[in-house]
């Protein structure tokens, strides 16, 4: 039960948020031109990093805004949250 920092609402209980998986996986520009394999990569394959992971979160029970976070999947600690219009932070 951790607190997650919504970039807008501030820290809220974990239960107010829903998880959106890996961040920075853009929808392909022209899906029709992709091979089946390339398309499958987009549809089904996501990184499953152990450690620092850039991922999407949704403050679903609050302001309903999506945002991104850098979180450690081993410790669960959030290192950074950032808005969708902010670049992925450079992490050491």
């Amino acid at each position, binding site marked *: *039960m*951790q*607190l997650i920092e919504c970039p807008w609402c501030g*820290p809220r209980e974990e239960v107010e948020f*829903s998880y*959106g998986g890996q961040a920075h996986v*853009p*929808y392909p520009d*022209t*899906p*029709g031109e*992709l091979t*089946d394999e390339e*398309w*499958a990569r*987009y*549809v*089904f394959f996501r990184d499953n990093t152990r450690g620092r992971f850039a991922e*999407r979160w*949704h403050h*679903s029970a609050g302001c*309903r*805004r*999506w945002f991104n976070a850098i979180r450690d999947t081993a*410790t*669960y*600690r959030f290192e950074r949250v950032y808005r*969708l*219009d902010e670049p992925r932070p450079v992490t050491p």
Partner: protein
Amino acid sequence: MTSPFRTAEGGRIDRATTLEFTFDGQTHTGHPGDTLASALLAAGRHQIATSIALGRPRGVAAAWAEDPGGLVQVEEPFPEPMLLATTVELSDGLVAHGLPGQGRLAEVADSARYDGVHHHVDVLVVGAGPAGLAAALTAARSGARVALVDEQSEAGGSLLGGADRLDDAPAMRWVAAAVAELAAHPEVLHLQRTTAFGSYDDGFVLALERRTDHLGTAAPKQVSRQRVWRLRARSVVVATGAHERPVVFADNDRPGTMLAGAARTFLHRYGVLPGRQAVVFTTNDSAYDAALDLHGAGVRVEAVVDARPAGSPQRREACERAGIPVLPGAVVVGTRGVERVTHALVAPFADGEVGAASPIACDLLLVSGGWNPAVHLFSQARGRLVYDETLGAFLPGEELDGLSVTGAAAGVLDLAGCLVDGQRVARAALSALAVEPAGEDRLPTAPEEVVPAAPLVLWRVPDTSGAEGTTSFVDLQRDATVADIARAVGAGLRSIEHIKRYTTIGTAHDQGKTSGVLTSGITAELLGVPVQDTGTTTFRPPYTPVAFAALAGRDRGRLFDPERVTALHDWHVVAGAVFEDVGQWKRPRYYPRPGEDMAAAVLRECAAARTGVGILDGSTLGKIDVQGPDAAVLLDRLYTNMISSLKVGSVRYGVMCGVDGMVIDDGTVLRLAEDRFLLLTTTGGAAKILDWMEEWAQTEWPDLRVHCTSVTEQWVTFPVVGPRSRDVIGAVFPQVDVSNEAFPFMTWRDTILDGVPVRLARISFSGELAFEVYVNPWYGVAVWERLLEAGRPHGITPYGTETMHVLRAEKGYPIIGQDTDGTVTPHDLGMAWAVSKKKPDFIGKRSFARPANQDPLRKQLVGLLPVDGQTVLPEGSQIVDFLADGRLPPPPVPMLGHVTSSYRSAELARPFALALVKGGRSRIGDTLHVPVDGALVPVEVTGSVLVDPEGARRDG
């Protein structure tokens, strides 16, 4: 029954009040302030139960939650399994008995209330002993918001069970003053009888408050029996004290064998003499206090057996003064007695070798092997533990953000040190929170203590009894012994986790509070490795057991999950509707008339809609208002069909797919303006589709100028369905030209009814002429009743979801989630017409081109007509090929698909079904078979539209 072991005076019990209780069928008395254990000890009873596997007598061995011996079952006031006699507060009328191993649940539901509360503080202090109180006072004096929780019935911690002095007065006077001062701070929450049982991220601590049990049958019914506090603290101070550690020796489980500190507690706190003739076996100085205090209370202390070669030079003199023999360099190697210890077998001990034993008569054998700091909450918060060679225990090995450990829990074992440490830790916590400590923050003065002699770390005494460790108990609750650990090591096990599983040590009610560190030590000794390398098993929540009902709290019965209802709900109830759960919604399934079963009611409702007029409460349909210059662009990307070409005033059916090309929802879209749409989703899909749209709009296409707003509860929706629906709508909304020419199918019109805006739409989910009425729910009941009134001459019939399903199935309209299961594409549903070929892309499009989507044997939605014209195929039935001999082949039998929907049709005067069938559309006209109750029912495959395939009826 008398209480022969009760002292004449002293203790923190209310001697003026007598409580009566029953244990193992015998009636005893005690006083408020007693626990079941202290009252039984006062009566001279040590044995509480027999052990789980070996059936050996077991008694009270500690004074609180670490007790491995005294398991009881409570029967009155309400059955509760497996509690410790040491933690059950005595109440009048309590009935309990000893438990050999398994508890018993009540046979009826528990009527007590339970609840949970969120609470936020700057500083949470866990434990109201000297360190905790010092910390809480420092924090409170700064003006910070503070919570102090403690598991005992009153504050004081170790001071409750001792005779310490502070400021030249009994230490409990300082405790009382501290409690009073805390009570005077408005921002302090002080809870006793409250056990912090779980420590999580970001200062989140769960604590269980036992609110009414001590009141017995007088407990107020409207107050929760137990409360789970969800404490969120910016800083947590763990001051949970330490558990005394036993030393293992042969037959160390005889009732009357007790931790030394526990005996002190029973004496000082409860006014109970745990025996008359004691032997004290120790490896450290703390047990000398027990020997001297018991001596002072009149107990004959036969010997202090000190395993250290020189014993305690510091304590020798006091013992000599009291006439207590001290045997340095000696150990207890065993005991005699069955239901009660009668002798301690004492032997010389040097360099790990045991000499010849001689018995010393006693009825009380006190043991102390040192102290294990209660690091549970620290470890649960993922703090690293390090083994301390001097203490023979694991200590917090790192600083954690926002959580600090103080006092005995941090290995500080003297009173003055605990006070100073508590204050220090609280000040550090305040400093981290940028809170200024108060100027006046005085600590009481503790008398100077002699520096104790160094303790000896001794896990076990070599077994000279011949039993080879099989009676040297490590975990009394699991009957697990030194021999079991040795066997595990011999079996090839090295990990402490394997040892635990092999021996089951630490898995019982006490979760290894006394046995855990012993096991690590003994295992390390047997393997010849450092204790640090062996480590401990993981400390997991809860610290002490918590009743399921306490965690369920108030989320039970009606409040288990919200019931969502429409504005018409009360009307439906009065009308006698039978309800169906659809997600969280309660929807009328049908409205039986007296004497009708569901089949009869549904046939009647269907006939009304097909031949006259019916009305449905469709308000649960999800509704989303989509606005903005780019609204049509967003919808074109999300629906499989083209939405941007829809004209204002018109309605279009649309399908949405996931990126995998599978249908996720369907519904109608009303174009309200160039830049505004109203989307109707399925009842179950409403929240999911809003989430889906916002996710795409926010995360992928933030450049689109479009906003989505849920308006599900902003509109009630009443489909008025059937050939006479035009008459009804025309009568209620006279300003609207309801003719087919003026108001064609798949269009909508706004009107005003008595000043209230109403929207009408020509949408049909039944194939009949139909109008959907949309209005603000404030006026929902009134408009519904107007429609009923106007429909009365036409026999207007309210119908429920079952009839809705029959009507739509007769038309082959699928229900997403019933006729689909996440593996079905629009093409599979025969809805290629709803998939745009013009749009370059939409969500799901690319997936349609995958190889598996080209398989001609994909399952497709078709109709099924049972050939006998009688059988209603059970929904979910499987469909198989027919064998030449008319029987099924042996398993596995190839399956062609399954029945997704199946009903009796009033219109067709026969049952029919929808089904997903492999290559279904190419099988139209074929006969397939459906196993039903052991028989094979022949079915004819048909197109999915069985009623009015030409669509002649929708315009009336």
